């Protein structure tokens, strides 16, 4: 690609584990291509000569958990043509948003930090970035899958909209010929969860925990009924549904249960 056609790209991390940026850094085979196919204007996890110039594409990891981040997020949006949410935290709020929609954030805050006063930051309940700004594309996962990320990235930098299949983890799980855990009465969230991870957990005989967030057409009520039939309690099922699904599960759960 010609130097002047290269897109200006920035990577930003808000609240989270940095796992998505690290997934990029961990992709030794792709890293150089990644670096050279665009102008990386900002990527503070990996380099120190960062600037706040206008961007073609901003990749944002992490959820928003204080007011300063919210402002920063809006500022990034203003100078970016496209904004891409990467990772479960940015897309749905991440594990820190598992209680989103129910009360009690203040108590939880006090449990951890007491009556501490934060001089530099004003904490708020952690939320996905689309609560604050418009998002053009979502690449989910906790963490993102490197292949899927680079697949999307390659398209995005050529102004294409990538397509990521909206089928559940079960599809990939079946391709890998795993024994279905749900059939054994294990609380597997495969049917509700967007695929892309290659069904890594079921392939290790462990249930899917839903870390990619809900698949678009998740049939939450059917899975809920099925699990109850298998002898799991409403509390157990609800807790698991909410663990990694952040903002994505609130609506369907409310629909089934009336309240959260």
């Amino acid at each position, binding site marked *: 690609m010609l130097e002047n056609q290269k897109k200006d790209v920035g990577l930003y*991390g*808000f*609240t*989270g*584990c*940095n*796992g998505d940026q*690290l*997934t990029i*850094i*961990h992709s*030794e*085979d792709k*890293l*150089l291509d990644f*670096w050279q196919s665009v102008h990386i204007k900002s990527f*503070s*996890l*990996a*380099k*120190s*000569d*960062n600037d706040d110039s206008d961007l073609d594409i901003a990749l944002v990891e992490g*959820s*928003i*958990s*204080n007011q*300063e981040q919210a402002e920063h997020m809006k500022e990034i949006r203003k100078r970016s043509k496209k904004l891409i949410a990467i990772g479960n935290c940015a897309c749905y709020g*991440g*594990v820190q948003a*598992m*209680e989103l929609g129910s009360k009690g*954030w203040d108590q*939880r*805050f006090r*449990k*951890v*930090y*007491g009556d*501490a*006063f*934060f*001089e*530099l*930051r004003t*904490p708020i309940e*952690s939320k996905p970035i689309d609560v604050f700004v418009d998002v053009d594309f979502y690449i989910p996962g*906790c*963490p993102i899958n490197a292949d899927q990320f680079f697949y999307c990235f390659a398209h995005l930098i050529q102004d294409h909209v990538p397509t990521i299949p909206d089928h559940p983890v079960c599809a990939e799980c079946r391709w890998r010929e795993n024994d279905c855990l749900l059939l054994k009465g294990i609380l597997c969230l495969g049917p509700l969860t967007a695929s892309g*991870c290659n069904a*890594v*957990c079921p392939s*290790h*005989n*462990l249930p899917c*925990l839903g*870390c990619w967030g809900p698949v678009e057409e998740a049939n939450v009520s059917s899975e809920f009924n099925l699990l109850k039939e298998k002898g799991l309690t409403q509390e157990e099922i609800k*807790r698991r549904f909410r*663990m*990694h699904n952040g903002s994505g599960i609130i609506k369907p759960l409310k629909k089934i249960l009336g309240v959260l």
Partner: protein
Amino acid sequence: MREILVEPLARVEGEGGITIRTEGKKVKEVRFDILEGTRLIEALVVGKTPEEDVSITCRICAICTLSHRYAALRGLEKALGIQVPPKVQWMRSLMHLGECLESHSLHAYILALPDFFGYPSVIPMLDQYNEEVTGALTLKKFANRVMEVTSGRMIHGENPTVGGFGRYPDREVLQQLKQEAKELLPFAEKGVKLFADLDIPSFFEQETVFMCCEPDEKEYGLVGDYIRISTGEVVPVEQYQKLTNERFVSHSAAKHCLYKKRPYTVGALARMNNLGDRLKGKAGMLFKKYWNERWLRNPVFNNLAQAIEIVWGLEQIPMVVDHIIKIKEDPEIVKPTQRKGDGVGAVEAPRGTLYHHYQIKEGLVADANFVIPTGQNLEDCEKYMRNAVEKLLTEAVDDDAIRLQCEIIVRAYDPCISCSTHLVTIECEDE
């Protein structure tokens, strides 16, 4: 008043900054700010099953994901009365070594090294230091592979679970790892020399205290149920609160730790200072060759300590793999023997001792407390920066020089900011 800010601090994991305020030639304030948002994980794990807990707490940090998982597993299994069989223990050692190698090679070569050669990142170093950089990337890739094979994927692998593993890797894959570890050793040894040859300034040096896990086998290692302190004491991990004494400081979302009112250091340097003379093989030789008294006073030697630990890790892996392969039968996941209990687990995360403390009631987490390495290092880190700034002020240098020196110190500690926001139970114990 002169104010020097570094924000955001680049090439560290998480969102942090440095604030320096001076008045004439006097230092008013030197702070390492933790700006990362709050996540309240300690509160969120309450009411979860142990399996759910490990899946949540590992997400505190992507670099030390397996250390968090391991510390949590150790704490939870104590509380649940679970004794895991040897194959599980060896598998955990292997995954932990993978993480240690991955983190060290990332930190030492990719995040810290550019400072010493005057580059903004590792990529432009490719021209001049191609061998070093590509070698480091190969090493990192190998370490990632170890984590992937053992834990299921590079980051947040769910395979290590309470009571064992969901699945065990194939023998051929393990053999392959063993082979690769051997092949990487020469590069790692050369790397030690690279860091040993760096010119490390001494003007901010000062004695401090070092802590690390005391491995059960009395060898060099990364886990143990006791803590060794450089003052000579050995304390059971259950007394971790006495050791760490967290207190809250308003400029950071992390809590600082003090031991007997003294700041202390954890991490590779602490392990080397406390346990280095137990090292055998190539790592032992290198330690003997390069260790000197300055290691006790200067945190920047941490990079060199990490480089030696990489050699040690590569020497360990073939041995650990052999142990795993020897046990043919894959053990079933061990079930809890009790639904109520208390347990503290400690492991050496790449950047130092990590504690997870759990109370379990009716099979669910009733209370959780984590103490994170970076929090323990904060106080020392600020101390050394202050020393450096004081000295530099007398030489009337510009802001950038001060900034760079402080960054070198902070980065030497390999701070992990995502982790460090996770501290709990405030016992505001201001001296």
